[in-house]
Protein backbone atom coordinates (compact mmCIF):
# COMPACT_ATOMS: atom_id res chain seq x y z
CA UNK A 1 0.00 0.00 0.00
CA UNK A 2 2.93 2.32 0.48
CA UNK A 3 4.69 1.55 -2.77
CA UNK A 4 3.14 3.48 -5.60
CA UNK A 5 3.99 3.05 -9.23
CA UNK A 6 5.14 5.89 -11.42
CA UNK A 7 1.79 5.81 -13.24
CA UNK A 8 -0.07 6.33 -9.96
CA UNK A 9 2.19 9.15 -8.81
CA UNK A 10 2.01 10.90 -12.18
CA UNK A 11 -1.77 10.95 -12.12
CA UNK A 12 -1.90 11.96 -8.47
CA UNK A 13 0.28 15.00 -9.14
CA UNK A 14 -1.56 15.73 -12.40
CA UNK A 15 -4.97 15.89 -10.73
CA UNK A 16 -3.52 17.76 -7.75
CA UNK A 17 -1.99 20.45 -9.96
CA UNK A 18 -5.18 20.80 -12.03
CA UNK A 19 -7.14 21.15 -8.77
CA UNK A 20 -4.86 23.93 -7.49
CA UNK A 21 -4.77 25.80 -10.81
CA UNK A 22 -8.54 25.69 -11.23
CA UNK A 23 -9.03 26.74 -7.59
CA UNK A 24 -6.78 29.78 -8.13
CA UNK A 25 -8.65 30.59 -11.33
CA UNK A 26 -11.89 30.18 -9.40
CA UNK A 27 -11.11 32.82 -6.76
CA UNK A 28 -9.84 35.32 -9.32
CA UNK A 29 -12.81 35.24 -11.72
CA UNK A 30 -15.07 38.28 -11.64
CA UNK A 31 -18.13 36.57 -13.10
CA UNK A 32 -19.91 34.24 -10.64
CA UNK A 33 -20.80 31.79 -13.40
CA UNK A 34 -17.17 31.41 -14.49
CA UNK A 35 -16.11 31.01 -10.86
CA UNK A 36 -18.71 28.29 -10.29
CA UNK A 37 -17.56 26.42 -13.41
CA UNK A 38 -13.93 26.47 -12.29
CA UNK A 39 -14.99 25.21 -8.88
CA UNK A 40 -16.70 22.29 -10.64
CA UNK A 41 -13.35 21.46 -12.28
CA UNK A 42 -11.69 21.43 -8.84
CA UNK A 43 -14.41 19.14 -7.51
CA UNK A 44 -13.98 16.70 -10.39
CA UNK A 45 -10.23 16.56 -9.75
CA UNK A 46 -10.92 15.86 -6.08
CA UNK A 47 -13.28 13.05 -7.13
CA UNK A 48 -10.46 11.54 -9.20
CA UNK A 49 -8.15 11.79 -6.18
CA UNK A 50 -10.76 10.06 -4.01
CA UNK A 51 -10.78 7.12 -6.43
CA UNK A 52 -7.00 6.94 -6.20
CA UNK A 53 -7.25 7.00 -2.40
CA UNK A 54 -9.57 3.93 -2.39
CA UNK A 55 -12.77 5.91 -1.69
CA UNK A 56 -14.82 5.05 -4.75
CA UNK A 57 -18.20 5.62 -3.13
CA UNK A 58 -17.13 9.03 -1.83
CA UNK A 59 -15.91 9.90 -5.33
CA UNK A 60 -19.32 9.02 -6.79
CA UNK A 61 -21.03 11.11 -4.10
CA UNK A 62 -18.62 13.98 -4.80
CA UNK A 63 -19.67 14.05 -8.45
CA UNK A 64 -23.37 13.50 -7.77
CA UNK A 65 -23.82 15.71 -4.70
CA UNK A 66 -21.20 18.43 -4.94
CA UNK A 67 -20.54 18.85 -8.64
CA UNK A 68 -24.13 17.91 -9.42
CA UNK A 69 -26.66 18.98 -6.84
CA UNK A 70 -24.98 21.74 -4.83
CA UNK A 71 -23.38 23.52 -7.79
CA UNK A 72 -26.67 23.35 -9.70
CA UNK A 73 -28.36 25.13 -6.76
CA UNK A 74 -25.68 27.81 -6.89
CA UNK A 75 -25.97 28.26 -10.66
CA UNK A 76 -29.74 28.31 -10.31
CA UNK A 77 -29.56 31.14 -7.77
CA UNK A 78 -27.07 33.07 -9.92
CA UNK A 79 -29.47 32.72 -12.83
CA UNK A 80 -32.50 33.61 -10.69
CA UNK A 81 -30.89 36.80 -9.36
CA UNK A 82 -29.49 37.63 -12.80
CA UNK A 83 -25.90 37.95 -11.56
CA UNK A 84 -24.33 36.21 -14.52
CA UNK A 85 -22.30 39.15 -15.80
CA UNK A 86 -19.42 40.54 -13.81
CA UNK A 87 -20.15 43.91 -12.26
CA UNK A 88 -18.36 46.98 -13.59
CA UNK A 89 -16.65 47.72 -10.30
CA UNK A 90 -14.37 45.01 -9.04
CA UNK A 91 -15.56 43.21 -5.94
CA UNK A 92 -12.06 42.43 -4.72
CA UNK A 93 -11.28 44.17 -1.45
CA UNK A 94 -8.72 46.94 -1.08
CA UNK A 95 -5.19 46.83 0.25
CA UNK A 96 -6.10 45.92 3.84
CA UNK A 97 -8.21 42.98 2.81
CA UNK A 98 -5.40 41.73 0.57
CA UNK A 99 -2.80 42.17 3.32
CA UNK A 100 -4.97 40.26 5.78
CA UNK A 101 -5.55 37.51 3.25
CA UNK A 102 -1.85 37.32 2.46
CA UNK A 103 -0.97 37.08 6.16
CA UNK A 104 -3.51 34.32 6.81
CA UNK A 105 -2.32 32.56 3.67
CA UNK A 106 1.30 32.67 4.85
CA UNK A 107 0.41 31.30 8.27
CA UNK A 108 -1.63 28.48 6.80
CA UNK A 109 0.97 27.70 4.16
CA UNK A 110 3.53 27.34 6.94
CA UNK A 111 1.40 24.36 7.88
CA UNK A 112 2.15 22.86 4.52
CA UNK A 113 5.84 23.02 5.38
CA UNK A 114 5.14 21.09 8.56
CA UNK A 115 2.92 18.63 6.72
CA UNK A 116 5.56 17.96 4.10
CA UNK A 117 7.43 16.07 6.79
CA UNK A 118 4.41 13.96 7.69
CA UNK A 119 5.26 10.29 7.87
CA UNK A 120 2.96 7.33 7.88
CA UNK A 121 1.00 7.43 11.14
CA UNK A 122 1.52 4.76 13.74
CA UNK A 123 -0.06 3.94 17.07
CA UNK A 124 -2.87 1.91 18.47
CA UNK A 125 -5.63 3.42 16.33
CA UNK A 126 -3.94 2.75 13.02
CA UNK A 127 -5.55 -0.08 11.11
CA UNK A 128 -3.60 -2.68 9.23
CA UNK A 129 -1.94 -2.08 5.91
CA UNK A 130 -4.47 -3.98 3.78
CA UNK A 131 -7.49 -3.10 5.92
CA UNK A 132 -9.16 -0.88 3.33
CA UNK A 133 -8.54 -3.19 0.39
CA UNK A 134 -9.77 -6.12 2.48
CA UNK A 135 -12.95 -4.22 3.38
CA UNK A 136 -13.51 -3.27 -0.26
CA UNK A 137 -12.93 -6.85 -1.40
CA UNK A 138 -15.24 -8.31 1.25
CA UNK A 139 -18.16 -5.89 1.30
CA UNK A 140 -17.79 -3.93 -1.93
CA UNK A 141 -17.36 -0.18 -2.31
CA UNK A 142 -20.83 0.64 -0.94
CA UNK A 143 -20.99 -2.04 1.74
CA UNK A 144 -17.64 -1.06 3.21
CA UNK A 145 -18.97 2.41 4.02
CA UNK A 146 -22.58 1.39 4.68
CA UNK A 147 -21.68 -0.97 7.54
CA UNK A 148 -20.01 1.63 9.79
CA UNK A 149 -22.59 4.22 8.71
CA UNK A 150 -25.55 2.13 9.86
CA UNK A 151 -23.85 0.43 12.81
CA UNK A 152 -21.35 2.68 14.58
CA UNK A 153 -22.74 5.99 13.36
CA UNK A 154 -26.45 5.20 13.21
CA UNK A 155 -27.39 7.88 15.77
CA UNK A 156 -25.49 10.55 13.85
CA UNK A 157 -27.11 9.31 10.65
CA UNK A 158 -30.59 9.68 12.14
CA UNK A 159 -29.75 13.16 13.46
CA UNK A 160 -28.68 14.12 9.94
CA UNK A 161 -32.27 13.63 8.82
CA UNK A 162 -33.39 16.11 11.50
CA UNK A 163 -30.78 18.57 10.22
CA UNK A 164 -32.07 18.22 6.67
CA UNK A 165 -35.65 18.70 7.85
CA UNK A 166 -34.69 21.90 9.68
CA UNK A 167 -32.77 23.10 6.62
CA UNK A 168 -35.77 22.47 4.35
CA UNK A 169 -38.10 24.33 6.72
CA UNK A 170 -35.62 27.19 7.07
CA UNK A 171 -35.10 27.52 3.33
CA UNK A 172 -38.84 27.55 2.67
CA UNK A 173 -39.53 30.15 5.36
CA UNK A 174 -36.61 32.37 4.29
CA UNK A 175 -37.48 32.13 0.63
CA UNK A 176 -41.17 32.89 1.15
CA UNK A 177 -42.49 36.30 0.27
CA UNK A 178 -43.74 38.24 3.23
CA UNK A 179 -47.55 38.47 3.31
CA UNK A 180 -47.67 42.28 3.49
CA UNK A 181 -45.06 42.52 0.73
CA UNK A 182 -47.61 42.67 -2.06
CA UNK A 183 -45.85 43.34 -5.33
Amino acid at each position, binding site marked *: *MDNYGLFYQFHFYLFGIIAIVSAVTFVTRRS*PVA*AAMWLVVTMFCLAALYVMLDAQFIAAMQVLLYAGAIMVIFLFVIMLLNLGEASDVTDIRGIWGKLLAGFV*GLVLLAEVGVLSRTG*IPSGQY*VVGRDYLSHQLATYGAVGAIA*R*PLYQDYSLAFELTSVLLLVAIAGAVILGRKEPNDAR
Partner: protein
Amino acid sequence: MLAESLGLSAILFVIGVIGVLTRRNAIIIFLCVELMLNAVNLTFVALSRYYGMGGQVFVLFVMTVAAAEAAVGLAIIISIFRHKQTVDLRNINVMKG
Protein backbone atom coordinates in the same frame (compact mmCIF):
# COMPACT_ATOMS: atom_id res chain seq x y z
CA MET B 1 0.72 9.68 -0.72
CA LEU B 2 -0.44 10.93 2.69
CA ALA B 3 1.83 13.97 2.83
CA GLU B 4 0.91 14.99 -0.73
CA SER B 5 -2.81 14.66 0.03
CA LEU B 6 -2.57 16.69 3.22
CA GLY B 7 -0.46 19.33 1.48
CA LEU B 8 -2.93 19.63 -1.41
CA SER B 9 -5.75 19.87 1.11
CA ALA B 10 -3.95 22.67 2.99
CA ILE B 11 -3.30 24.60 -0.24
CA LEU B 12 -6.95 24.33 -1.33
CA PHE B 13 -8.07 25.43 2.14
CA VAL B 14 -5.75 28.46 1.96
CA ILE B 15 -7.15 29.39 -1.45
CA GLY B 16 -10.64 29.20 0.03
CA VAL B 17 -9.67 31.40 3.01
CA ILE B 18 -8.05 33.97 0.74
CA GLY B 19 -11.18 34.00 -1.40
CA VAL B 20 -13.40 34.61 1.63
CA LEU B 21 -11.17 37.45 2.82
CA THR B 22 -10.66 39.21 -0.50
CA ARG B 23 -13.99 38.95 -2.32
CA ARG B 24 -17.11 40.97 -1.66
CA ASN B 25 -19.62 39.05 -3.75
CA ALA B 26 -21.71 37.03 -1.30
CA ILE B 27 -22.19 34.12 -3.71
CA ILE B 28 -18.46 33.82 -4.41
CA ILE B 29 -17.74 33.87 -0.67
CA PHE B 30 -20.23 31.02 -0.34
CA LEU B 31 -18.46 29.07 -3.09
CA CYS B 32 -15.14 29.62 -1.30
CA VAL B 33 -16.64 28.07 1.84
CA GLU B 34 -17.61 25.06 -0.26
CA LEU B 35 -14.00 24.85 -1.48
CA MET B 36 -12.79 24.84 2.13
CA LEU B 37 -15.21 22.02 2.99
CA ASN B 38 -13.88 20.07 0.01
CA ALA B 39 -10.31 20.53 1.23
CA VAL B 40 -11.27 19.12 4.62
CA ASN B 41 -12.99 16.18 2.93
CA LEU B 42 -9.74 15.36 1.15
CA THR B 43 -8.00 15.21 4.54
CA PHE B 44 -10.64 12.83 5.86
CA VAL B 45 -10.36 10.53 2.86
CA ALA B 46 -6.55 10.52 2.92
CA LEU B 47 -6.45 9.66 6.62
CA SER B 48 -9.19 7.05 6.33
CA ARG B 49 -6.64 4.73 4.72
CA TYR B 50 -4.81 4.64 8.03
CA TYR B 51 -7.55 5.09 10.64
CA GLY B 52 -10.39 3.02 9.22
CA MET B 53 -13.65 3.77 7.42
CA GLY B 54 -14.83 6.37 9.94
CA GLY B 55 -13.24 9.14 7.90
CA GLN B 56 -15.23 8.28 4.80
CA VAL B 57 -18.44 8.14 6.83
CA PHE B 58 -17.62 11.59 8.14
CA VAL B 59 -17.17 12.87 4.58
CA LEU B 60 -20.77 11.84 3.90
CA PHE B 61 -21.88 13.87 6.94
CA VAL B 62 -19.86 16.87 5.77
CA MET B 63 -21.53 16.64 2.36
CA THR B 64 -24.96 16.57 4.01
CA VAL B 65 -24.15 19.60 6.12
CA ALA B 66 -22.80 21.37 3.03
CA ALA B 67 -26.05 20.69 1.18
CA ALA B 68 -28.12 22.01 4.10
CA GLU B 69 -25.85 25.03 4.40
CA ALA B 70 -26.11 25.79 0.68
CA ALA B 71 -29.91 25.59 0.80
CA VAL B 72 -30.29 27.87 3.83
CA GLY B 73 -27.50 30.26 2.84
CA LEU B 74 -28.81 30.75 -0.67
CA ALA B 75 -32.29 31.34 0.72
CA ILE B 76 -30.79 34.08 2.93
CA ILE B 77 -28.97 35.56 -0.08
CA ILE B 78 -32.20 35.57 -2.10
CA SER B 79 -34.09 37.29 0.69
CA ILE B 80 -31.30 39.88 1.10
CA PHE B 81 -31.32 40.45 -2.66
CA ARG B 82 -35.06 41.05 -2.50
CA HIS B 83 -34.55 43.90 -0.04
CA LYS B 84 -31.28 45.41 -1.29
CA GLN B 85 -31.20 44.47 -5.00
CA THR B 86 -27.54 43.48 -4.63
CA VAL B 87 -25.34 40.72 -3.23
CA ASP B 88 -22.33 43.00 -2.80
CA LEU B 89 -21.24 43.04 0.84
CA ARG B 90 -20.34 46.75 0.65
CA ASN B 91 -24.06 47.50 0.48
CA ILE B 92 -25.11 44.94 3.07
CA ASN B 93 -24.13 46.43 6.43
CA VAL B 94 -27.30 46.41 8.51
CA MET B 95 -25.53 44.47 11.28
CA LYS B 96 -22.66 46.97 11.55
CA GLY B 97 -24.30 48.99 14.33
